[in-house]
């Protein structure tokens, strides 16, 4: 038995070529981070234009996968200049003091059928929360498209303080959807 394990691990160590792909380079122009929420019962949406990601994901070894995503909060597009200016301000993101939101994965679990659960820490405005994000992987030629969505409560991160801190006008739940297209690094 020991021999078999040794043989397998040797095999894995000696033959990295069997790894079909390892996605490492995120193609920003084919990736997006968007959000939706409700305001006075109306579904609104927006997106973040500027974000960077560090990724290493080998579908053959998902447990080894790592992802770090940093979003420049000032790059938010709410749909209006007035809205963009407002959310950059102190009561919302306070982008001067907290310019980036950061997600860092801590573990990745394969759920089968190209679906994964990525657990990690989400930090916005100096507040960190553990979250688990369902992600699906769709190979597209030499690229892999990682897509998924999750919901955060803006109150957990003090996004919208003062007169915005009640949820009757702008809801607490913010649904974040992402699509990251990555290619192999080598």
């Amino acid at each position, binding site marked *: 038995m020991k021999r078999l394990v040794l043989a397998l691990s040797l095999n894995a160590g000696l033959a990295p070529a069997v790894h079909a792909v390892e996605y490492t380079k995120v193609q920003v122009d084919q990736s997006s981070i968007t959000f939706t929420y409700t*305001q*006075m019962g*109306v579904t609104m949406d927006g997106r973040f234009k500027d974000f960077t990601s560090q990724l290493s994901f080998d579908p053959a070894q998902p447990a080894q996968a790592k992802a770090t995503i940093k979003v420049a909060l000032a790059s938010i597009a709410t*749909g209006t200049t007035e809205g963009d200016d407002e959310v950059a301000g102190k009561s919302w993101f306070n982008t001067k003091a907290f310019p980036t939101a950061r997600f860092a994965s801590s573990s990745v679990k394969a759920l089968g059928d190209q679906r994964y659960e990525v657990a990690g820490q989400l930090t916005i405005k100096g507040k960190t929360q553990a979250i688990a994000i369902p992600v699906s992987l769709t190979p597209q030629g030499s690229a892999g498209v990682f897509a998924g969505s999750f919901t955060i409560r803006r109150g957990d991160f003090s996004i919208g303080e003062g*007169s915005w801190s*009640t949820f009757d*006008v702008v809801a607490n739940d913010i649904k974040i959807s992402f699509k990251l297209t990555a290619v192999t690094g080598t």
Partner: protein
Amino acid sequence: MSHSYTATAKTLHWLIAIMILGMLGLGFYMHNLPLSPEKLQLYSWHKWTGVSIFLLVIIRLAWRVTHEPPPLPASVPRLQQWLAHGVHLGLYVLMLAIPLSGWLMSSAKGFQTVWFGVLPLPDLVAKDKALGDLLLTVHLSLNLLLVTLLLGHVGAALKHHFIDKDTILTRMLPSFIARPPDTTNP
């Protein structure tokens, strides 16, 4: 031939009149507010009321078509009769066109109209900043025209009542206010 409007016509006239006056004040007030939860709330209320006025005007037009209004007294010169009818026609057109322009503007600006936060109205135009700004100008211009016609409409009614001392105004007043013309004390 009755010399007074029907109770239904009077009710719709005064209900819509009160709503329009409130909406004019609200529209000009909310437009200059800084972004705040109150502003978003007022905009929603403004839209909900606008949709309500539009529907009431449809009902009113249906009533108007099926219930002939009392004719203007023969004492009113022909030119003034044409002028009165022209202003009435203009008011009807504006009472439909103004909510429509507001609805289209909302869609173009990317804020869907959801009546009372429950019933979503379809977006007939896609989000488009230039179109949104244009429709804002249209909405404002139509309202300035409305104010002009209203001044003429109200001015004429008061002139008929206080100068001509005829029944033009009283035939639209609620029956508990309107009294037959005082003939004992001319």
